[in-house]
Structures are given as structure tokens and as C-alpha cells.
């Protein structure tokens, strides 16, 4: 039987929703146990949150001052030690998990399955390659621990609130390196919904034209209660910060409603949105590839259409 260790992602004392998505993927294996591991200097609040996630058997915490920031070099030896006795180690395929999981896999001397989209069996998974232009079925050797990152857009967050999993503090004997140090995190402050988990996302692209013009996107997003994203072209042009980038090399998201405004729809952008429920495209070029994947398309000048949308919304 499988026993799965899920590495919790958290920031600022809160569990990231990606954790519950990774638990969802773990549940698909129908394992004997799913334990969530919280590494932090102060794990209690996040552990309490994780204990409520449906399907979680136990929450394990490792409280060490070195774990105040998620440095892969510091966390990986602790995860690798904890992994003994588990058949699988899962982490979300976010920048946190992508940074950490391969370091754990290498310490365990095993391969990693990146970006799991579906579980076909305890050791068989589907994952995208070539920016999502092909989907491969991968079999991992049952004799080894499976380390995998979970493509969060492919999995719903496991329900929360109905579970009361026990929380156990671990003390792991591992010598931790001091060669890597956290300096700072520059984070845009925003009252808007989180891009990765929002039900609605409004994104702007090159067609928005400038950083100043991007205000029209923010204003419209606020009107409909959406998170704000951007295409790589808009980020490269300096219209908005990197954490807003949606696409293959940015965030891969699956909102119920995705509105692409002034975005032509480069393949790497489409990779980031193809799991969205409904895609709306607004672009002045009727031939733009974004219309090939849009459920609703509207050709025209975004600076004229957005105010009209606001009027129609009332």
C-alpha cells in the first residue's frame, strides 16, 4: 500500500492553497495514509489549517529557526530524512515545490515526476512536455520512492473543515547547511484575490500598451472581483511585475472565468490557461490565436470595450 508525504507550502503564516491541491492528487492514489509535513520556524497555525484538509491522516511539523524561510538547501535534508517509510513524496508544482522537490529526489537517489496532471495508478502518471503540446504517460519504478510535483491547475483543492487530523511534532537529526541565506522577499502588496487560486482572472497583454494604461485592467478586475494577470509580453515590457505572469514560465492557472484582454495568445500563454472553465478573449486583431481557444470572443479596441463592459455590468 502507498503512504504519501505531502510537503506543505506556506507563506506569511498561512497555508498556500497549492497544498490542498497536492493532497487531492495524493488521494487519487487511494493510499493507506497521507501525511502533510510543515517545515517552519513556527508551524502551529499552518499545521492546524492542514489538519482540516479532507484526506489528511496526520500533520507532521518540524519547527526550527533555520526553517523561517523556504530555502531548498535547508529544507531538503529534513524532507529526505522524513521520507523514510513513505512510498511517495509530493510537493505542489509551484516555484516553492519546483525548487525543493528535485533536491529531495537527488538526496534520495531517485527520479522525479514533474507536473503530475493525472494519476493512472500508484506509479503511473500523466504529465505535459513541450509546453503542453504533448502529454506523456510515465511509469516510475515501484522499488523506489516516487518524488513528484503536482500541477496545481489540474487538481481541485481538497475540501477543508471536516477533518481533524492529529498534529505531531518531529525532531529530525539533520545537519543543515549555512551556505545559502535568505535576504529579502519583494512582494507587491495587493488587496485583490490571489492569482493562483482566484475563481476569476482578468489578464492584460501587450495590447494594453503601457504601465499607466494597465490601470484600466486593474479597475475592471476590481469591478468584477477578479485577480489580475498578464502575458509574458506585458511583463517583459515592464507594464507589470513578474509575479503576474500567466503561462508556461509563469503561473499555470485554472480559474472558472479567464478574461484575456489585449493578449494575442502565444502558445506559452495558452499553456497557462487551458484548464480555465470559460475563456473570454478581447482583442482588436480578429485573427489572434487567442480566439482559437476562447469560449467567447469579442473583436475591438479594449479601451472602448472595457468601459462598455462596465456600463453593461451596471
Amino acid at each position, binding site marked *: 500500500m502507498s503512504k504519501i508525504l505531502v510537503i506543505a507550502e506556506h507563506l506569511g503564516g498561512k497555508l498556500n492553497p497549492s497544498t490542498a491541491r497536492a493532497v487531492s492528487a495524493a488521494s487519487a492514489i487511494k493510499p493507506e495514509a497521507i501525511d502533510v509535513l510543515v517545515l517552519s520556524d513556527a508551524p502551529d497555525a499552518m499545521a492546524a489549517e492542514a489538519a482540516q484538509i479532507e484526506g489528511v491522516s496526520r500533520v507532521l511539523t518540524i519547527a526550527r529557526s533555520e526553517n523561517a524561510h523556504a530555502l531548498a538547501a535547508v529544507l531538503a535534508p529534513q524532507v529526505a530524512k522524513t521520507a523514510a517509510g513513505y512510498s511517495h513524496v509530493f510537493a505542489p508544482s509551484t516555484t516553492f515545490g519546483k525548487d525543493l522537490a528535485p533536491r529531495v529526489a537527488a538526496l534520495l537517489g531517485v527520479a*522525479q515526476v514533474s507536473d503530475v496532471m493525472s494519476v493512472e495508478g500508484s506509479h503511473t502518471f500523466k504529465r505535459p512536455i513541450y509546453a503542453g503540446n504533448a502529454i506523456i504517460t510515465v*511509469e516510475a519504478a515501484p522499488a523506489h520512492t516516487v518524488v513528484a510535483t503536482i500541477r496545481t491547475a489540474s487538481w481541485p483543492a481538497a475540501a477543508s473543515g471536516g477533518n481533524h487530523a492529529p498534529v505531531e511534532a518531529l525532531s529530525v537529526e539533520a545537519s543543515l547547511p549555512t551556505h545559502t541565506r535568505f535576504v529579502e522577499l519583494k512582494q507587491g502588496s495587493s488587496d485583490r484575490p490571489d492569482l493562483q487560486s482566484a475563481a476569476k482572472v482578468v489578464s492584460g497583454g501587450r495590447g494594453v500598451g503601457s504601465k499607466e494604461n494597465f490601470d484600466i485592467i486593474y479597475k475592471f478586475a476590481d469591478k468584477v472581483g477578479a485577480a489580475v494577470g498578464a502575458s509574458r509580453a506585458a511583463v517583459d515590457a515592464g507594464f507589470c511585475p513578474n509575479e503576474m505572469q500567466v503561462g508556461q514560465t509563469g503561473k499555470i492557472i485554472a480559474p472558472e472565468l479567464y478574461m484575456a484582454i489585449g493578449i494575442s495568445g502565444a502558445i506559452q500563454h495558452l499553456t497557462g490557461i487551458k484548464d480555465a472553465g470559460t475563456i473570454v478573449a478581447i482583442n482588436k486583431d480578429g485573427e489572434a490565436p487567442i480566439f482559437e481557444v476562447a469560449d467567447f470572443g469579442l473583436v475591438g479596441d479594449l479601451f472602448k470595450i472595457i468601459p462598455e*463592459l462596465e456600463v453593461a455590468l451596471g
Partner: protein
Amino acid sequence: MKILVGYKRVVDYNVRIQVKPDGSGVVTDGVKLSANPFDDIALEEALRLREKGVADEVIVVGIGPADLTAHLRNGLAMGANRAIHVSTAEAVQPLTAARVFLKLIEKEQPGLVILGKQAIDDDANQTGQMLAALWDRPQATFASKIDIADGKATVTREVDAGLEVIEAELPAVITTDLRLNEPRFIKLPDIMKAKAKPIDTIEFASLGVEAHDHLKTTHFAPPPKRSKGVMVKDAAELVAALKQKGLL
């Protein structure tokens, strides 16, 4: 200081990938091959560090079949001092690639290893992290800015929450993100000059690396297609349609 740069050859990013009808792979015959874009960024950054006087030698490394030398010549034409070709007819998975790099590190003793954050063929995003673990050295993944001074790298990383800055003592592994730099174009005279630069070929088998390719790919499929939707004529019709679906 020496800098080792991973320089993988992949299907060019402009090629539209086709899955073979029998699900045995993707069509690679006759398609254009190029350097992995993230590796071009890695090489560019190494060259800039050499131009600043931080490094004195830049070595590009490729793992692949005999004809990989033509690809490595491009890295030399871009400005690398020399190339190492680890020769193998088999495709290697990230853990094996990391083990190969570790062997080369033991021999070359670089102060810095720069790799692309991922290759755009298998999109694994693993080799740099695995190498750093095996080498027991720092990793700074998804770099958008690198400063080297006083035996350490100060690296700005593109993370989901924003920009994270970390310090890593050298030697270290850095993996590149898109906005680190814009790679230079190769000029014709540089192609001529590159012909005189050395490429060392090392047989994969001679490295004593355990090929640990645990993952078997059993099937390739095209991605599920989203069907084309409808065009609406104006803002009012769009809002009505979205309201009807309960989305607004």
C-alpha cells in the same frame, strides 16, 4: 574562476510539436534543433561575468550523440572558451545528467555552474537542483539577476510571490529565468573563430556514472483540444452571456 554552463540541444521553440499517430513519441525527424533558450541565457550570463572580470573561463557542456559537436560549436561561437561533449547515444534523464555534471565538476573545479531552469523539451526543471544536492552546494533557481562579489552570489529569484533575494556562497549552482538577460547573436567572424576552439569528447561510459533512469515513458498523446467558441458582437452581449453562465 571557471564557469560551467549546461548547453542542451532541443527542438527549436518555434516548431509546432506533433505527436506520432501511434503514440510512440513526437516527430523529431527533420525538425529544426536549437539551443535550449534558457541555456542561451545561461551562456550569455557566464560570458558577461567573464567580460566583467569575475570569471576567466567559460566552458559549455553538452550530453548527447556524436553530432552534438555542431551544436557545441554554436556555444563556442557565442563566446565560450571551450566545450565538453559527453558522448552517448541514449537520452539521459535529469538525475543522470546531474551525476555527469558532478563528475565534470570534480575534474574542472568551477566556481559557478549556470544551467537553464528547464529544457523546453521535457520541461522537467530538475537538473540544477539535483546537481546542487549531489554536490552539497547552494542552489539559486529561477534567477533574474546575479551579482558576484566576495566569494558569494547574490541572486534575485522570480518566485510566485514576487522577487526573492538570496545569498549563496560559491561554488554554487544557478538556474536561469527568462528575464536574466537577452542573449547576444552569433556573428559570422565568431563562427570562424569557433572552429579553432577545443571540444573535448568524453565517452559517457568512461565517467562511471550510474544511469538511473527510473522513469519509463509508455505513451505520448496530443493534448485535449479546447473547442472554438462563439464570437459576440458587443460588450452587452458578452456580459449577458457570462451572466447567463453565472460567471458574473
